C-alpha cells in the first residue's frame, strides 16, 4: 500500500511538473496572494502581523490548490480515460486517490517558501518564529490534514461529471469560513462551528501560534484528529460513491 501511495505521489508530481501552465499557476498564485495580504495589512504594520498574514496567504494557496486540484484531478483522470482503469484496479481506490490530493496539498511547501522569500525581499519582513520546532511540525500536519479534506471532496466528485466546477466552488467559501481572509470573530456566530470542523482552520491556528507565540499543540492535535476523521469519511464515501457511479455509469466521460 505504501508503494502505491509513493508511486501515486511521484506520478502526480511528474504530471504537474511537465505542464507549463500548471507550473506557472503553482508558481505565481502564492506570490499574488502574499502581495495582496501584505497590502491589506499595510506595510507599516507590526512585522509579526505581516508574517502571520503571509502565512495565512500560504494556507489560502494550499486550500485553493486542494479545492481546485481535487476536482481537477478527477476531471483529468476522466479526460485521460484513466479513471475507469484506476477504479478497475485491484487496490482500494482511496489508495490511488489519496496521493493525488496530498500532492496538491504538498505544493503548499513551495507556496510557503515563495511567500516567505517574497515578503523578506520586497517588504523586509523578519523571519522570526517563536517555536521553530512547533512550526516545523505544524506545517506538514496542516498539509496532510488539508490533503485528507481534499480526499473527502474528491471522493464525492467521482459520482459527478461536473467535478471540476463543483470542486472550484468550494474555494472562496473555504477562505472565509476558515478565517483565512478575515478573522472568524467578525463573521456571524454560526460560522464558527463549521470552521472548527475544517482542518485548515486549525492548520492556520497552529502555524500562527508557532510563529507569533501561544500553544500550538492543541491546534496540531485537532489537525491530526480531523485527518483521521476525514480518512474514515473518505473511505466510506469512496465505497458508496463508487457503487453509485457503477450503477449510474458516471465513471466514463461518454
Amino acid at each position, binding site marked *: 500500500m505504501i*508503494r*502505491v501511495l509513493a*508511486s*501515486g505521489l*511521484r*506520478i502526480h508530481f*511528474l*504530471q504537474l511538473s*511537465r*505542464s507549463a501552465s500548471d507550473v506557472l499557476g503553482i508558481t505565481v498564485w502564492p506570490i499574488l496572494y502574499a502581495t495582496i495580504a501584505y497590502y491589506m495589512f499595510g506595510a507599516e504594520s507590526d512585522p509579526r502581523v505581516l508574517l502571520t498574514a503571509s502565512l495565512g496567504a500560504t494556507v489560502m494557496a494550499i486550500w485553493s490548490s486542494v479545492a481546485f486540484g481535487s476536482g481537477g484531478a478527477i476531471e483529468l483522470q476522466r*479526460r*485521460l*480515460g*484513466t479513471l*475507469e*482503469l*484506476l*477504479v*478497475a*484496479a*485491484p*487496490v482500494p481506490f482511496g489508495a*490511488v486517490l489519496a496521493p493525488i490530493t496530498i500532492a496538491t496539498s504538498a505544493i503548499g511547501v513551495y507556496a510557503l517558501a515563495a511567500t516567505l522569500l517574497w515578503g523578506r525581499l520586497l517588504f523586509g519582513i523578519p523571519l522570526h518564529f517563536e517555536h521553530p520546532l512547533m512550526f516545523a511540525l505544524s506545517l506538514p500536519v496542516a498539509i496532510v490534514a488539508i490533503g485528507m479534506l481534499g480526499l473527502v471532496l474528491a471522493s464525492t466528485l467521482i459520482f459527478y461529471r461536473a467535478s471540476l466546477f463543483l470542486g472550484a466552488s468550494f474555494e472562496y467559501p473555504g477562505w472565509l469560513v476558515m478565517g483565512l481572509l478575515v478573522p472568524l470573530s467578525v463573521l456571524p456566530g454560526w460560522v464558527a462551528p463549521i470552521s472548527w470542523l475544517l482542518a485548515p482552520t486549525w492548520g492556520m491556528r497552529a502555524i500562527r501560534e508557532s510563529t507569533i507565540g501561544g500553544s500550538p499543540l492543541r491546534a496540531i492535535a485537532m489537525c491530526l484528529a480531523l485527518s483521521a476523521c476525514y480518512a474514515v469519511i473518505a473511505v466510506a464515501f469512496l465505497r458508496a460513491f463508487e*457503487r453509485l457511479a*457503477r*450503477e*449510474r*455509469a458516471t*465513471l*466514463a466521460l461518454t
Partner: protein
Amino acid sequence: MWANPALDYSAAVAADPLVAVEVVGLKRSYRSGKGVFRRRSSEIEALRGITFSIQRGELFGLLGPNGAGKTTTIKVLTTLLLPSAGTARVLGLDVARQPREVRGVIGCVFGGDRGLYDRLSGLENLRYFADVYRVPARGQRARIDELLELVGLKGRERGRVETYSRGMRQRLHIARGLLHDPPVLFLDEPTLGLDPVGARELRQTIARLQQAGKTILLTTHYMFEADELCHRIAVISSGSILATGTPADLKGRIADRTIVEIEAFGASDEMIERLRSVAGVASVSVELREQAQVILVQSSRGPELVQPLLRELEDARVGKVVSRQPTLEDAYVDLVGSA
C-alpha cells in the same frame, strides 16, 4: 513465462472449471434526464438479457454494430458497471458482488487514444500501473521489459506517450493490461483507428496471447479480424445476441447462398426496393464506397440471378459485377439486417 506471485486465485472457483466467463440473462439499462424544472427521464435498454459463456483459453469475439451493447457488456464484466438484472461471473467470481476479487484476475484494454498519462513516458506509465495492479517490486522491471519486448516497444519506452503514434499507444495499452499477468483479458475494439500494418501486428500479438493460454473476450466490428482470430463469435445487435458459433458455423447459415456484388452509380431507393422483389433474393444491402454504391445481393439462385438484377438497374450506371461465396461479413449483415 512470468507468473504474478501476488495474484490469489483461491476465491476464483467456477461451477464448471472449464468455463472462464459466464453471462446469464444480463440486462443493463441507462436512465437519462432532460429539463431542469420539469425533469423528464427516459430509459434506454443497452442489454436485453444476453446469455453466453467463454471456455478457458478461448478467444471469443463479440461482434456488432455501433450501439449494439458490446462496450456495455465489457464494462459490466470488468466491474465498471453494475448489471440491472441477470448475473455475470469471471472464473466463478460474481462481478456485482465480488468486484475487488474480479479485478485481480482480469486485464482490460479499451480501444482509442485514451487511458494513458500523455505527459509521462511509456516506462513511467507501466511502472505506475504495475504498482496499482500489485505487481511485486521484485521482478517488476523484468516483467515490464518482457512486455515491452512482446508488444514491440523495446527501445521506445523512454519517449513521452504524447509523441507516440496511435499504434504505439495501443500496444502500450496491451502491455498495461498484461502487467499483472491476468488469466482473463477483455479487449474492447483494440485495433480501432490503427493503420493496416499496426492492426496486423496487434492481431499477431493477440493470437500469441491466446496461444499462451489467456482467455480473451474481443469486441470488434471488423469481420475479417473476428474471422482470423476468434474460436467462437456472438453477434449482438440492439442489446440482444442474435447468434453464437464458430466463424464456420455462422458462415454455414448462409452457405447455400451466392453473393452478387454490384458496383453502381446513381441507383435510386426505388431501384433498390425493386431488387428486393426479384424472385430468389434473400436480402439486399447497400454500402457507399467513395462515389460508388456497392449493392450486395444474397440469393439462393447463384450467378443466374445477375441478369434479372441488372434489368432492375438499367437506369443507373453499373460498374463491376462479381458473384462470390459468402463471407463472415455477409453472414453478419444477414443476421443484423434481419433482426
